[in-house]
């Protein structure tokens, strides 16, 4: 069980390339998903805090 998992991680010797590609993808996609939501919360808070017209 662990043997095949280790092989899976090893990726036939290409581990660095394959996992870097997937990690980079995950990082970029995650960042792009999180940043706008934070910005939206920030904006809404700023708008709510403004004095009413």
């Amino acid at each position: 069980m662990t043997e095949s998992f280790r092989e899976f991680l090893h990726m036939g010797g290409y581990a660095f390339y394959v996992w870097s590609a997937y990690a980079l993808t995950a990082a970029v996609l995650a960042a792009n998903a999180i940043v706008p939501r934070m910005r939206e919360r920030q904006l809404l808070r700023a708008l709510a805090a403004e004095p009413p017209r």
Partner: protein
Amino acid sequence: MAILDRFHKYGSPPQFYATAKTLAPWFGWIGALLFAAGLAGGLALAPPDYQQGEAFRIIYVHVPAAWMSLFVYVTMAGAGVVGLVWKMKVADAVARASAPLGAAFTFLALATGSLWGRPMWGAWWVWGDARLLSELVLFFLYAGYMAVQAAVEDRRAAARAGAVVAIVGLVNIPIIHYSVEWWTTLHQGPSVTRFDAPAIHWSMLAPLLVMTLAYMCYFAAVMLVRSRVELLELERRSAWAREVAGR
């Protein structure tokens, strides 16, 4: 006409904001499921390629990213046209929101392409692969679009200028791709370095399609969120924005 009524209804910023808020999570969760399925298929179920071994698995993050980079540019230009012709603020917001996402996909296509190329050709970058070169030009097109939008201070004027840039870019993309293809094939040096698509078997293709759908759902979800933010920023002073914030 019912369709035009719908068009104008969703063209109103507060309506779009509400719809986007409802739809985004759906796309998000469906996308997450598709990602899980695609990764399972691509990383585990698909057999290793007889030529490239396990390295070919990079295809599952490289190809969808490349397809999306192009798809998003078309979306961006299309939204730009709609905003330009029908003067729809929502379309302008969608166009502006899509650009960073498209640039991110392009960056990923290039980076994963590089990571794929290194074990295959021994070099991080080659000047002989038409698709990578075209992808790089696309990245510069995105950069230029975002630069123009940032340079014009009035949001509406920025959207219009951006739309023209996007349209000119869109028309040029096939021409650029053809010229790069022509250049790299007819003037190739002795060493041929191109992405040779592995012989596609169904077990290899299926995860690719699933991953592409996953990326599409991801784009839909994040684009909707970003468009909401753009609309809020555009309409800061409006009543509906305050209402949304106060709630």
